[in-house]
């Protein structure tokens, strides 16, 4: 006998599920795309939003934290933003609608809405697993985005900036990006908000072929009202390098998932995270990394600055397959806690099935060092400025690893702006 009592859906759950009937007519794609959307919304309806009882969401109880969902607002669209590095090619989506494709030699851009209408992206809408709430919401509602294909051997002279602008209202986008063999590029995935109440999901599906060298920077600046749930999903080929930066500088409720498979021998994955957390925000960076074959390497360094009543989460799971001998994987999560009411939870998880590997992880939480502060003050630097310098130094160390000076400068500008507003 099934006595499974049906739980009353929360306001956010009801809003997410009920909107489907109204939205259906406007969502691109039919046939198999439609059924993929139906399956996604059914799964969401069945499971509801994950609570803390779901292991993967333990520190981000979405059922409690997501109180409401901003309604769609057809007037929320904007123009593209000026790029953070001048000369970048911009492929923008605003309010769930792609704008104009840039022209870059060796790079093809196609609106994701067209691919949905053509029905050529069915596999991409697959849900990862039962805990994949972001995948469910996005598959059900995705309207647009950019499918980008970089030809073999192309070396981009300027960054490619993918913009997802959601100033208010609701939007769901995807960026499937394929780098051909030996490509070298810097991509800036800019997740931008406005002043308003927004709800958005964004999924980047990235294929890094053999011998590529890719730097990918996720830069998030959202308002204190907006919620964003995002995924970065990548596979890395033989001898390729993927250098991923996640910079969170705003948003009320943010979850950035990173799912990476190191599947080509000799490949390397680097993750650098900078979480600048203030106000009443909740920010979660959750990574799963699979070392699937021999001789792969990875390093994750996450630096967090927490002030006010902000709460942050970093979950880092590294899985080393039985055949993945000589894996070298290291993970560190360091937090600078500036207020008594701030909180940061770090959960490392190593699952190692091979026996000849080097894996390690560490986490620290500290306040500003009083000796450092005194030293700077003794040289005439006023306390607030000295604190600012030390906080910036804590995260700038990670940013300065980037070789590109313009990029370092642009990111430090964002740090400065955040510090000026929050410290």
């Amino acid at each position, binding site marked *: 006998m099934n006595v499974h009592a049906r739980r009353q859906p929360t306001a956010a759950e009801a809003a997410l599920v009920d909107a489907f009937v109204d939205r259906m007519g406007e969502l691109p794609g039919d046939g198999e795309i439609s059924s993929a959307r139906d399956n996604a919304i059914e799964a969401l309806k069945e499971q509801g939003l994950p609570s803390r009882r779901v292991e993967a969401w333990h520190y981000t109880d979405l059922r409690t934290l997501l109180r409401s969902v901003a309604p769609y607002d057809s007037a929320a669209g904007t123009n593209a933003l000026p790029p953070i590095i001048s000369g970048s090619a911009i492929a923008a989506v605003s309010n769930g609608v792609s704008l104009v494709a840039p022209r870059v030699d060796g790079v093809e851009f196609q609106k994701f809405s067209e691919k949905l209408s053509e029905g050529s992206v069915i596999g991409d809408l697959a849900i990862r697993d039962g805990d994949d709430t972001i995948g469910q919401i996005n598959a059900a509602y995705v309207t647009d985005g950019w499918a980008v294909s970089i030809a073999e051997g192309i070396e981009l002279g300027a960054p490619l900036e993918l913009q997802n602008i959601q100033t208010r209202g609701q939007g769901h986008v995807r960026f499937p990006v394929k780098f051909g063999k030996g490509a070298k590029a810097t991509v800036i995935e800019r997740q931008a908000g406005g002043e308003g109440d927004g709800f958005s999901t964004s999924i980047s599906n990235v294929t890094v072929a053999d011998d590529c060298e890719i730097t990918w920077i996720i830069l998030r600046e959202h308002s204190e009202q907006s919620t964003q749930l995002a995924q970065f999903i990548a596979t890395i080929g033989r001898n390729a390098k993927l250098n991923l930066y996640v910079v969170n500088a705003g948003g009320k409720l943010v979850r950035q998932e990173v799912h990476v498979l190191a599947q080509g021998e000799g490949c390397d994955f680097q993750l650098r995270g900078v979480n600048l957390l203030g106000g009443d925000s909740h920010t979660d960076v959750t990574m799963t990394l699979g070392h699937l074959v021999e001789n792969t390497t990875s390093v994750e360094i996450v630096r967090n600055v927490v002030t006010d009543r902000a709460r942050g989460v970093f979950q880092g799971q590294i899985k080393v397959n039985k055949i993945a001998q000589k894996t070298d994987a290291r993970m560190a999560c360091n937090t600078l806690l500036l207020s008594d009411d701030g909180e940061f939870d770090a959960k490392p998880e190593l699952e190692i099935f091979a026996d000849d590997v080097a894996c390690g992880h560490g986490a620290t939480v500290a306040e500003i060092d009083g000796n450092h502060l005194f030293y700077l*003050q*003794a*040289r*005439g630097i*006023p306390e607030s400025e*000295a604190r600012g*310098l030390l906080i910036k130094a804590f*995260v700038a*160390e990670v940013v300065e690893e980037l070789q590109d000076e313009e990029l370092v400068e642009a990111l430090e500008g964002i740090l400065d702006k955040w510090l000026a507003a929050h410290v």
Partner: protein
Amino acid sequence: MLEIRNLHARIAEDGTEIIRGLNLTVKAGEVAAIMGPNGSGKSTLSYILAGREDYEVTEGDILYNGESILDLDPSERAAKGIFLAFQYPMEIPGVATMEFLKVAMNSQRKARGEEPLKIPEFLGRVKTAAASLDMDIGMLKRPLNVGFSGGEKKRAEILQMKLLEPKLCVLDETDSGLDIDALKIVADGVNALRSPDRAVIVITHYQRLLDYIVPDTVHVLYKGQVIKSGGKELALHLEENGYADIIGEAA
């Protein structure tokens, strides 16, 4: 320039009294050496002059150019011209030395109502000062003091002192950890700053540094008090006889 009157101070955290009725006067143009055995309160005195919060003044006063500085925080004291060369300069990862120098110089200028330095002017000053201390300018591109040897750190302190042009320089055991060549360079740097409107307090355990920075006055600190003052010959006496007889005399 500096007048310390019946100063009593303790460690804020546990209330241990370190300075117990200290009196000291240092005039403009004077180089005063403060000597004393370990634990006599020498470093504590330097921290209290710089305004470190870990110490609490319970009695007495510190007058700088006739005004009490007890209510000023460290950055305000620095802007007024008080400089402490640290015994153990801090390593601060992530803060580039050049950036630090620029912020420090311009913060002090701002506090004094002066315009910030233009970049070429700033760089010119740094290059000149670094060359006079035989320092490689490349070192200044590194994070502040990170990976510097003991000698390099002390040189970097003197470099900061030259650039900030303070009026009262307090050198806390600047000779510790220096070989003789580095000691000479550092001492030359200090001597070059000697001027009629500037006072220098040299805190040291040994006479050695005073061969190179010749003091006008020497003060012996013991148990948080100045127990004897004299001219430079007092330092030589201490070198030969140790502290025992002076301590005995005072007791």
